[in-house]
């Protein structure tokens, strides 16, 4: 266990005018699984690499157990890291790959063997210890990379998009395996991914980044249900949240392109208090908050739109209905039983109690 504090950290690469990471400020709790998520180039891997010591910190401080470690070499930080492309040593066997870090640290041979055997058993690699990485599948290589980190028994695990090279099925398997490993090892982990599903399913806390800036830090539930801005709201969730540029007048929102619905008093109160009445705002509605079931149509009578299905995707348990009302396009995620074919006219109810509103200019959530 190690207490980690990233204290207002900045990163600027030589020759760049702008910072790649700006004012990253976060403290990790014991045994916490933190996921850095965001689109490509948002600075999440750079931040992880600064924690690892593979990149210098331009401004700010990194503390581990209260000690400032900005200048400490990676090997002296008591960390283990799993790389996106595995970064195995092709000339060494699986066992040698896993035990190499211990060998460098002059751990006795019998201890190395014990730790490698234990890790191999956890990861199902016992039969492959004498093979070289070239003779392994992608999933096996990824497990060797994990094994290399496990045997180190480090205080902090850093995982840089470790599953991005695996196929969808294997990714789900490995996701579970990593989550189990975290529970078993009881150690801090920082995991970088661009996949919001990985972030949501694995994290104790998520740090969502964009353009080098932290957008929000919180639990998956907080990020999903209480996004602090439009970017977070749009990034978390698949299909992504529907956004509508609307005008708020009286108790209704409309966009002049076919969408015209009532905002319930509970949501309207905050908007009114903050002076958004008779102003343009961005409204966000998650696809699963748009319903086609009769019970919803009967319940949300003030927010029904007569829409036409343009494309429908049947996903087994649910269906995504890409629809439009007037010229306004949106997607609804409904129960698979309510599957509708393209071209069908369908009544849809917007569950406006769950709608999100954002300032049109800066995208900040209007509470």
């Amino acid at each position, binding site marked *: 266990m190690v207490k980690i504090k990233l204290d207002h950290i900045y990163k600027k690469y030589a020759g760049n005018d702008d910072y790649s990471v700006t004012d990253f400020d976060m403290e990790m709790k014991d045994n916490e699984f933190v996921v850095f998520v965001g689109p490509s180039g948002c600075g999440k891997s750079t931040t992880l690499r600064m924690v690892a010591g*593979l990149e210098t910190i331009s401004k700010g401080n990194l503390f581990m157990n209260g000690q400032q470690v900005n200048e400490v070499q990676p090997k002296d930080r008591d960390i283990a890291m799993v*790389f996106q492309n595995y*970064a195995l040593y*092709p000339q060494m066997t699986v066992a040698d790959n896993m035990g190499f870090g211990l060998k460098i*640290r002059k751990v006795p041979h019998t201890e190395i063997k014990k730790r490698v055997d234990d890790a191999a058993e956890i990861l199902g690699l016992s039969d492959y210890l004498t093979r070289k990485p070239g003779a392994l599948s992608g999933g096996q*290589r990824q497990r060797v990379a994990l094994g*290399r980190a496990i045997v180190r028994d480090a205080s902090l695990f850093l995982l840089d998009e470790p599953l991005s090279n695996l196929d969808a099925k294997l990714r789900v398997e490995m996701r579970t395996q990593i989550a189990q490993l975290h529970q078993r090892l009881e150690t801090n982990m920082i995991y970088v991914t661009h996949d919001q599903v990985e972030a949501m399913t694995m994290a104790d806390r998520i740090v969502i980044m964009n353009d080098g800036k932290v957008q929000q830090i919180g639990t998956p539930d907080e990020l999903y249900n209480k996004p602090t801005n439009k970017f977070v709201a749009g990034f978390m969730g698949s299909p992504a949240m529907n956004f509508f540029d609307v005008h708020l007048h009286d108790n209704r929102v409309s966009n002049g392109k076919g969408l015209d619905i009532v905002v319930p008093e509970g949501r309207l109160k905050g908007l009114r208090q903050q002076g958004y009445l008779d102003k343009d705002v961005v409204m966000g509605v998650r696809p699963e908050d748009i319903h086609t079931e009769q019970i919803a149509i009967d319940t949300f009578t003030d927010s029904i739109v007569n829409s036409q299905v343009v494309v429908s995707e049947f996903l087994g348990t649910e269906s995504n209905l890409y629809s439009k009302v007037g010229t306004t396009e949106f997607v609804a995620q409904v129960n698979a039983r309510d599957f509708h074919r393209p071209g069908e006219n369908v009544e849809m109810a917007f569950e406006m109690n769950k709608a999100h509103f954002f300032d049109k200019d800066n995208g900040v959530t209007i509470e």
Partner: protein
Amino acid sequence: MKEKSKILKVILYAVLILYAVITLYPFLWALAASFKPLKEIVSGNPGLLPQHFTLDSYKYITGTSSLFTSWFMNSVIVSLIGTIVNLFLNTMAGYALARLNFPGRQRIYYGFLALMMVPAQVLLIPNYLILMNLGMLDSFKSLILPAAINIGNIFMMRQFFLSFPADVEEAAQIDGLGRISTFFRIVMPLARPSIATQAIFVFMGFWNNFMQPMLYISTPKKYTLTLGLQTFTNQQSGVRWDHSMAASIISIIPIIILYIVFNGYFLQGVRMDGEK
């Protein structure tokens, strides 16, 4: 269509076989001549099989009256030391230019590229004068030192290291290796195919070098093989084709051995993402 491609294939093979025979014949002739007495060689018989098979030429050149063994050993020493020094310096320089961030790195690289354009002949006289002033003429140092690095090979190694995955080095860093140990324990073993290619070219360069030994070496006992071989054709008794051919055949043996040893590396491609 199939018939046409078959005919084309036959023509292609015929041309290639003819070319191979044309290329191989001089070598086979030299090999055969080394087992013939001088009279038979100069008799004008172009046949390959010796009518009077003899090992006399080999006995003569390896005997005590000949300096051939010394020349051979001189060539081995110069080529081996020169190759080892070259591999070490070229590989490290290539790595530094590809991986290390230091002021002026790009300028040094462009400077190297510019120096590649300078013909070797232009440097002969300046090198001679420098070596003379340093008192290194007529020594192996004069053959090794001016050729201790090779810009072409530095360039080749730089290109290799540019494509070398950085995360393997970073993994080694996290595993506890410093920059130098990462270079020797992780990078060098993975660079074996490139280093082997370099080794062959550098060794052959030293082994076949004639111009520099001719200019810098004056004591016959210090001659390298290329220079020594020439003496067989300069003796007053005429050209000793038998001795010359035997010496030539022996001189190519190290190159053949080197090729056989490193051949595997030429064919081996290493993918650096953990695959082979």
